[in-house]
């Protein structure tokens, strides 16, 4: 007997003895929503929650310029199709690369990619493979800037689950990469970005 057959047989034997199998509960998705977090909703609600998890909310291209200047960024990953959009907001002397070269992983100070949408309730950015040509570009550099369409905001986690993209890889990003493994002390930028920013476009 294969392991598959053995497992299914053992499950069926156990399950057959269940006296009162629990029914599948129907519940309203509204009950999972945090009204207090959602607040008035919209982008101001998103901003509040995004900043609460230490996200950098960039309101204008000027803010982007200021961030990159402050962080002394020189080289960044940015897919070809976004370069015209961001170039006007870059400080002088910045080099944009449209490919992420693995052998030079530490040369990239920042990555700019397009987010699919965002969740107001939790300050979450939603990325998917079809819009992130190279996952490393949104992950390896110290700074990640997600460009989000103003029209793409989702209100809650429940809505975002309902509208999960078809993409085989979808990732929700809620703030910079972090750990509290060492004595419970919060450190940002463990394996992923230490600065997680977003810019509405």
């Amino acid at each position, binding site marked *: 007997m294969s392991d598959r057959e053995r497992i299914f047989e053992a499950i069926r034997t156990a399950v057959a003895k269940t006296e009162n199998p629990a029914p*599948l509960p129907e519940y309203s998705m509204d009950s999972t929503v945090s009204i207090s977090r959602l607040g008035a909703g919209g982008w101001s609600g998103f901003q509040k929650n995004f900043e609460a998890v230490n996200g950098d909310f960039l309101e204008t291209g000027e803010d982007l310029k200021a961030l990159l200047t402050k962080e002394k960024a020189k080289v960044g990953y940015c897919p070809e199709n976004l370069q015209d959009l961001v170039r006007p907001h870059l400080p002088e002397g910045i080099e944009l690369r449209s490919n992420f070269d693995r052998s030079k992983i530490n040369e990239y100070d920042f990555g700019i990619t397009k987010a699919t949408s965002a969740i107001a309730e939790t300050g979450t950015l939603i990325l998917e493979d079809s819009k992130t040509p190279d996952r490393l570009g949104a992950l390896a550099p110290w700074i990640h800037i997600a460009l989000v369409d103003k029209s793409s905001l989702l209100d809650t986690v429940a809505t975002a689950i309902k509208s999960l993209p078809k993409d085989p890889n979808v990732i929700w990003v809620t703030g910079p990469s972090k750990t509290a493994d060492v004595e419970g002390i919060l450190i940002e930028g463990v394996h992923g970005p230490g600065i997680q920013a977003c810019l509405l476009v």
Partner: protein
Amino acid sequence: MSSQIIDQYANKLGEDVRTSVHTGSASGTDKRFKVLFDDLPDANGLRTTAGNVKQHTLDHLDKYLEQAERALISNGAKVHYAWDSETTCSQVENILKQASARTVTKSKSMVSEEVGLNESLLKKGYDLVETDLGEFILQLDGDHPSHVVKPIIHKNRAEIARTFEKHGLGEYNDEPEIITRRAREFMRAKYLAAEATITGANFISAESGRLCIVTNEGNSRFGLAGARIQIALVGIEKIVPRDADLALMLNLLGRSATGQALTVYTEFISGPKPVDSVSGPEELHVIFVNNRRTEVLDSNCREILRCIRCGACMNVCPVYRQASGHAYRSVYPGPLGAVLSPLLAGAEGFSELADLPKASSLCGACNEVCPVDIPIPDLLLRLRDKGKREKSSNAATDSPPMGAWSWVAKSPSLWRASLRSANMLNLLPYEKIPFGPLGRWTKDRTLPPWRGGKFRAWVKNREKEAK
């Protein structure tokens, strides 16, 4: 000193370890409480609903496992099944062999701890590295996690700094930020060199076959950006029926585990990467692991399989806080482990861990904080009963013999006589009782004066007066 095994571990803990475990778990409990109840209007109602969803899934697990398998295959994943720890390890090895993979990154997976995957692969010469910071430190130390969410809750920064120094990760420096940066640099080379990455899964939706993996550090994401092959080890109980149930579970998991509305990275994987994407696995292998879960399903403790591994029960448990995780001598510590570990040990291992269900005051806090409302105290009682019936010696440790008591209690006249004669107890120097558990109990405690028989006399007099 108590002869309970868990107490012996607790007594041996150094003062600094006791403090870090206590502080870490207590702060986890406080954060959970604040975030869960500030955020959700009916958090307790949600716990009940989530428990019902998981219970329903378990009660119909054959149907949902089949459905998940179908969905996974149609998404392009390869599905494998492993009956026990041995077959789990050999299946992982087969996949690695076929892919000619030697370097492997791994993100946190409790089921891999259960089956001893690291030891097995390292012995065969694979270059395998744990990428979660805490798990990486444990790997360097040859140590094991003492908490399901905070694996190194029992270690302090000085210890970690010494470990890093010893393994050539820079000179001694105990700043948590420096420790983290060093791990970041070290790990990048591994992520890029690895041909395969091993992950767990927090949930899997039967409806869509989506695997859901949550981390805060981004290590599983990095593993999945670097490697060509993904192997996901999934306990057969990790299934939820619908995608919508993922929203319910995610809303409870982060808040219960770390007091976060959502963990930083919540990844939904339904197959290998799209062909036109640069990074990401070209193959996704899902191994459904049994390792005695079907025995648990068939026991009177099925409810424990609802567990979503948030760690809230260990954070709140007064016994865990004193004893730390290694006292449970198994992969799963705390109240969860006190139920699950003896069961996963199977018929031959149960007796060895049969003392764990007694490592509880049955205060009920573990049930109150459980996001899937597992009646842990009830399950502990069922396992105490099992231990007693199977005459396991560890289950009997420190239990006073009840045979004489039950003989007396069954006879009204004996009972009356013993109540009266027990007044003699007041004259006994009981603090000097020399033997066994009773002696240990009375050494530090005094008893109130014995008043046996007074109630009966009072009732009798009332009856007389009424006439």
